[in-house]
């Protein structure tokens, strides 16, 4: 998919109406309750009779079992986001396009990992999610690239080009992809709020509020991962600027003391939403449960923003998160059932709002 220019007047009424209809067709709690009691084959059959029918049938000749479900989910995700982009004009288009560049980041990282591990181009191509800005041609060339260096060269002119050029030197020194992957993610988050006017409109404010929450949550989970891993790493190196919870200096100070970090989050604007997750983190140092709590909190936050400001970019972004969550939930159920997990065990892992 190639994104068009952000032009024209914002068509919030039209987009939000269509989004409401799409949102209503997402799987609800009762669907998940049914799914967690099915085996992988039954889940596949259920999906063939649902929204995912087209993708399941299209990919059925190439994949089978839970792999088929996962690839169909990814394909469907791309299609839906493509539809939403086609409906939007003006401001919401620009915000959504920025947000969906996360799939560009995903695709570039997937391509680099594939090249690095010398995977066949067809396998790398299967793992791409076509929901971003990078064209099919460029992605095709990327997966065919014979070295990391040529892949980095191919990305010239994209939002990743400058950061990748800098990170490539570090990659050459270390021989591992960490600098490149971090640079790609950092470029994505920087691009989310880059270039916004200093006196933002209400729509821009709402978008910024949403992005700040996402960056805060990402910083928080990464700081806790680094701190609890016990590794001698400066968490500030992995801090994404743009959040409102803490900056690099604060994060460096707080990361040495996880209790203080948790206390700081409790007293922040997110304290109420994250209370349960923070309690679990305090009790069991269970970072996974806390990450789940962060995801729930972000979903709920986006829903709150979208119900408070129904004619804004918020319902669009909330739908993107909800659709992604649906895909994550279905995949979790299918993979969980494949691995022999019980319905109760899977249900605790699902994020349903």
């Amino acid at each position, binding site marked *: 998919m190639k994104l068009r220019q952000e032009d024209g007047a914002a068509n919030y009424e039209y987009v939000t109406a269509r989004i409401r209809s799409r949102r209503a067709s997402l799987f609800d709690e009762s669907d998940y309750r049914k799914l967690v009691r099915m085996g992988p084959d039954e889940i596949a059959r259920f999906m063939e009779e649902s929204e995912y029918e087209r993708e399941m049938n299209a990919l059925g000749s190439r994949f089978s079992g839970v792999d088929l479900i996962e690839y169909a989910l*990814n394909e469907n995700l791309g299609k839906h986001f493509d539809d939403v982009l086609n409906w939007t004009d003006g401001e919401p288009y620009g915000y959504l396009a920025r947000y969906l560049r996360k799939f560009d980041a995903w695709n570039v*990282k997937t391509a680099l*990992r594939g090249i690095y591990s010398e995977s066949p181009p067809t396998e790398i191509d299967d*793992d791409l999610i076509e929901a971003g800005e990078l064209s099919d041609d460029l992605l095709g060339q990327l997966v065919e690239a014979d070295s990391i260096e040529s892949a980095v060269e191919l990305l010239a002119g994209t939002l990743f080009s400058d950061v990748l050029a800098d990170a490539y030197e570090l990659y050459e020194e270390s021989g591992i992809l960490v600098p490149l992957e*971090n640079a790609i993610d950092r470029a994505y988050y920087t691009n989310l709020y880059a270039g916004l006017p200093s006196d933002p409109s209400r729509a821009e404010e709402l978008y910024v509020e949403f992005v700040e929450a996402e960056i805060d949550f990402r910083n928080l989970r990464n700081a806790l991962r680094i701190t609890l891993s016990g590794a001698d*790493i400066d968490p500030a190196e992995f801090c*994404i600027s743009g959040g409102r919870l803490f900056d690099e200096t604060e994060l460096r100070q707080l990361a040495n003391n996880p209790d203080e970090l948790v206390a700081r989050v409790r007293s922040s604007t997110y304290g109420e939403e994250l209370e349960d997750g923070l309690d679990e983190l305090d009790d069991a140092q269970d970072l996974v449960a806390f990450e789940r709590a962060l995801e729930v909190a972000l979903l709920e936050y986006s829903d709150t923003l979208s119900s408070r400001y129904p004619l804004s970019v918020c319902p669009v972004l909330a739908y993107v998160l909800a659709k992604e969550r649906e895909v994550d939930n279905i995949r*979790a159920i299918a993979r969980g059932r494949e*691995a022999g997990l019980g319905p109760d065990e899977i249900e605790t892992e699902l994020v349903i709002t």
Partner: protein
Amino acid sequence: MATDVKPTRKNLMAIEDRIELSEQGHDTLEKKRDGLIMEFMDILDQAKDVRQNVEDQYGRAQRAINMARAMEGDVAVRGAASALTEYPEITTESMNIMGVVVPQIESSKVKKPLDERGYGVLGTSARIDEAADAYEELIETIILAAEVETAMKEMLEEIEKTKRRVNALEFTLLPDLYEGQEYIEQKLEEQEREEIFRMKKIKDKKQEEAEEAEEAAAAEAEAEATASADD
């Protein structure tokens, strides 16, 4: 074997020397076997613990990767896994336990800090860290299990070898030597008895001859006396 040897005193002495040496060897090997068994029992306990750890950790690692595949997706997990192509370094040294050379395996670069695992920190989650952690621990335990189980195998082979040697001495070599010793002793005793008998015979014969000579001399003297009386 017993009848193969010449029943001489020299051979008897040689057999007695061999018996003494074999008995000493038998005692030493028995002590070695018992020592090896004790060492083996220690290693066996350790191996049982390590095996149990491998099973537990494999279960945990499998569960962690299943959860990561479920929550992050198979594509994300495969992607994170392929972001590192460096293998752990394994070096082996040898250690001597009661004459048995067993390997000592040292590993490095198995457990890695978060920023050296290949995948980026910013775009991944704790689920992937958890799976990576669990597999790193599993690999470390597998390496330990390889060391302990190889040592156990080597010890077992040495115990079997020592047991075979002890049994060969106890049930084949020493009985043969005892039999040979007994055979030679019997033969020598028999020879001695024969010698005594022969000596006795000779003595009797000599005595008989002496008596006969005496009788002949007496008869001759008697005849001479009769002849002189007739004259």
